[in-house]
């Protein structure tokens, strides 16, 4: 039995996802890095009601695939391996989720090759099937299967973008960084730090994110703030923790890093 991960809703995302799950609608999660997309899907996968009650094949009812630019169709669907004198078919993560009923979460899907992304199309409409060419199978999706994609619009470029034919198969949930109070609660929960210190870290996060438009490609993620909080919890001074977990992790630009350190100094003294 897996514990339900901690997740603090920011808006109505839990209700909307639950509704999409009930209707078995594929879901697209959009948001900057470290804002809680993965944690959200872990939480939802663990909490949504399953029609078959779960069969234990997929722990946590979730299979996550970190997409990258060399991700091939075989990496998702499966491949033959030579095992002694015979070739053996091994299901890929997508096939396993389809076959056994689980949420398949393709993280940062825009990173994947376009010819790979096309494979998911039959799974994301009314057919809910997965043709496996190499074995000649056409798998019908398990009732508890759901495809969830995520991507970061900040990385979007001409070369890396979801085709419309892919986009329009999903309901999209947009994520942002949580408000300061909520983020402080998250930091406090994840790190065990006291709320006052967590609030200061959340303030730092809020301030640093202002730089997104000028200087930083991304704002500081809640994840990094949690890291900083965990370092503080381990006895590292707050300013040093912010330096190693926030400013230096966020950028190689010395000027930006020093400016972030200055803000941290203002907040923590």
């Amino acid at each position, binding site marked *: 039995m897996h514990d339900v991960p901690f997740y603090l809703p920011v808006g109505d995302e839990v209700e909307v996802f639950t509704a999409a799950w009930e209707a078995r609608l594929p879901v697209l999660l959009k948001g900057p890095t470290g804002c809680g997309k993965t944690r959200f899907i872990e939480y939802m996968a663990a909490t949504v009601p399953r029609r078959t009650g779960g069969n234990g094949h997929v722990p946590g009812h979730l299979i996550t695939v970190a997409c990258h630019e060399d991700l091939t169709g075989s990496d998702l669907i499966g491949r033959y391996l030579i095992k002694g004198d015979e070739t053996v078919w091994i299901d890929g993560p997508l096939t396993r989720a389809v076959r056994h009923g689980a949420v398949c979460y393709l993280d940062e899907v825009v990173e994947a090759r376009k010819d790979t992304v096309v494979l998911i199309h039959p799974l994301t409409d009314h057919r809910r099937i997965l043709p496996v060419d190499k074995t000649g199978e056409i798998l019908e999706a398990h009732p508890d299967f759901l495809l969830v994609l995520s991507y970061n619009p900040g990385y979007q470029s*001409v070369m890396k973008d979801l085709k419309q034919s892919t986009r329009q198969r999903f309901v999209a949930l947009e994520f942002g960084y949580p408000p300061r109070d909520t983020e402080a609660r998250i930091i406090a929960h994840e790190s065990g730090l006291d709320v006052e210190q967590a609030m200061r870290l959340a303030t730092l996060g809020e301030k640093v994110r202002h730089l997104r438009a000028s200087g930083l490609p991304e704002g500081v993620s809640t994840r990094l703030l949690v890291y900083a909080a965990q370092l503080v919890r381990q006895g590292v001074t707050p300013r040093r923790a912010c330096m190693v977990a926030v400013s230096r992790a966020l950028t190689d630009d010395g000027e930006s890093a*020093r400016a972030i350190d*200055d803000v941290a100094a203002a907040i923590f003294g």
Partner: protein
Amino acid sequence: MTSRPRSSAERRLAQVSRVVADAFDAVAPAARRALGDDFTPWADGAADLAEAAAPAHGAVLAYLHAPRDAVASAAWNVTALRIAAVSGTLAASFCEGSAAMVGRADAATLDAWADAGIALRAEAGWRGERVAHAFFAATAAGLHALRPEHFVRFGALARHLRPALDEPLMFRALPVEVAHWTVDERSAWLAGAMALSPELAVLLYRDVPAALHALTPRHRAALLDVVRHAAAGASGEDLAAVLPMLGPLATAIPPGARDAALALATVVADAFPAGVPALLRTLARVFEETTPAHAATWTDRGIAVGTRSRAAGVAYFGLASRTSLRVLRASGTAVTLDEVQGGLRKLVHMLSGESAVPRPSGRFQLRPPLEESHESRMVALPAAIDCLDTCEDNARLYRVLATLLSGRREFDTYAVLPDVAAYVRDAERSPVLEDLFLLTDGWRVACRMGARYPGLGADLRWAGARLLDTPASVFDAVLAVALRAEGMRGVAPWLAATASMVLPSLTPLAAPDATAVDALRIAERLVVLFPQDRRDVGPAGLPELVTLLLDADEGYGPPASDGPRIGAGGDDDGEAPPELPADLLEKLELLVDEHLDDAGGTGHAMTAEELERLLEAGLGMQISEASGTIAEQAGLYVTQLLGKRLAAKTDPLPTAGEPPGPRRAATVRVPSTDAAVFLYDEWDHLIGDYRPAWCRLREIDVAGDSGLFFDRALARHATLVPDIRRCFQKVRPEMYRPVRNLEDGEEFDLNAAVEARVEHRARRSPSPKLYTMRTRQERDVATLFLLDMSASTDETAEGSSDRIIDIAKDALVIMASALEEIGDAYAIYGFSGQGRDNVEVYPIKAFGERLGAAARSRIGGIEPRGSTRMGTALRHVLGKMRGLTAPSRHLILLSDGFPQDLDYGTDRQSHVYGIRDTATALREVQAAGVQPFCITVDLAGHDYLREMCDPQQYLIIDQVAALPRELPKIYQRLVRAA
């Protein structure tokens, strides 16, 4: 009754004129009584003069009515006779002009004066008589202002000035101020005027003495001497601009540094007179930014620069070259805005949530100036800070200022009072209102920032403590006292007095709900304590004064629980507030009563001793005479304490990026204030150096046209577009290429699998590399197209009915379509502007932006604008390419002519300045790893493009209409070559 026998003199006078004889008879009895035995010589003198000046009677009549001083009259008579020998009427003018001076002016002075008049008459030709008359008539009152040796020079100066100022006017314009000058000053003044051209000499002669009134005689003489030397080499235009400002410029120099500053000016005037006008403008700033010793080093370097190149030297002394600023700020401890502005911009942006562009604002002060517009994205920071001992401390001060500026935005100074700058600077209001508002709102912001950011509290207290000894103004000093939170311990009595008056009023501003409106209200009430403007004094302003005077012993520390605290009241280890002696308190109460009554009280004027005791007690106040309105009496105001420790407050001089007014006033267009502003250096080939922060550039949004032009362009080139696309598809790399012999992959490699099987059967170890996979081959190219949107592109292209700009837009449409096909990263920017303060860049499509409806419509919205300041635009768009990781980066400049702008160089007829600056900018582009390429439709382009870049870096398109077809080809060739 027997008649007295007529004397010889009487007979002679009667022969000359009955009128003269009657006049003599009238004054004779009194003269006889006054002169006694000297009467006869006096009467003979009258007769001599009457005969010599006849038929003019004026001289002898003046003689008869002049003061009767036997000796002086005799000498005067001799001089008058000398003039009468030349002209009787002139002798009359002399006598009438100088009669009142007989006995007061010495004989030598009168002689010299007479000689000067005679010389003027002789040397002014047919006008001589009139000029000499005017001389005697106008300068008699100035006899005491000039020495004998000056009259000859004075007369010579009159002749020198004649082309610009008629002599009579010149004589009448003799400034009364020179009467109080020393001989040396007058000598320097006259010599300086003689050294200048007539037009400039008039300025120095007529206008400058009044402007130098506030200087000491020594400084005046030194300054005039500098001007005299400068005349040998400085341009007349530069001198004319600086002469009327001599006084204010000199008084802007901190008093303690004036000796050193003028000594340096003298050195420069001797060695490089051309640099003097520029130096006089910047001396105050130089001595604010650095020490006298380093200023001397800076001057030496400037003389060396000026010796090599006059223009470079002038720019150097005007702080208008990069070298000059670098040498000036080459202090071991100074920190310049250039060094830290990037980090400060980010700091302000992070804290306030709004982007900010630092702008140099002159000298350091703890209360940075307000921005004109609440929509401005600028934050005013000093060009350099060198007031503390180490770089780290000076950099820390910059951070403190940046946080206070963020606080203004974060705590709504501009949101609540959008026009606060205009309000406090209104000429109708007190001149200290702005300073006071900066103080009150600065304190409010500091309290709020300290409460929100616990780490800032320490910084603010540190800044207050460190700046207490070297404040930029009395208001800065008061804020420093408040920030340091140590009460009045160690504070100089004058400052303690001032702070004690002001700080209690600031208490409400430490409250979390205090707003900028509260700060303004309190500043307006505090004005009464600083009444340069007497209109502001009145009962309405008194409550604060009353609070201060009567409640001072209740302590005056507010404060924010965790922010900085004011004064001693809230500080355990601070001293108790000074207690007001009972007798002084009583006197103060009387004064307050009087003030409220405003009708002349019955109090007594405070004696110097009482005043001293009061200051020592740590309480300052407003002190008036016993009667009359308080405001009109010569009381002691806080601002009068300035001289005790501080330099008089002066407006900051223009910085390098903000040269003096007249030239800048020539800019025509006022840009929108909400556009981001960037400052760029510019290369000046005349000085062989960059002019720092010389150009202001704004990014201006282009209003789109809903994509109509884009669609029509595609339709117009319907046959060309498919060809181009096809052509580009050929260069599109093969997207996927199979790779074999992999241990993991998409497919089995059948050959490898069979081979492995064979090996296995043969009981040999098979290779694990059984898979094959397709891998992607990428192009990684980024290109920025920079389009000249100058007004000249509005012309119809040769051989076409379309405008040049429309053809260029067509080319961009086709190019963009083709690049979308190939997937190369590209961006499009336009540029134009008017003058160096108004360079404009128009973002059309940024890198990473899709060629969506917005970008398409912006291409359609491109229209001709102003001039062509290429260098600045190139430097700006280069910044857009710095973050790109593509190994192959290109910048393609599309233009229709040479670089040109209204102030692109001093000589508007010459394009050399613009060409050289653009060439330098292109080299900067290349040095940054970006390959520039210039395309022009100007057939004469060879003339200047070969100066701007290598032959392989430019192309001239003969037929403008061919641009849409040629541009993609050029692009392909460039990218392939790279």
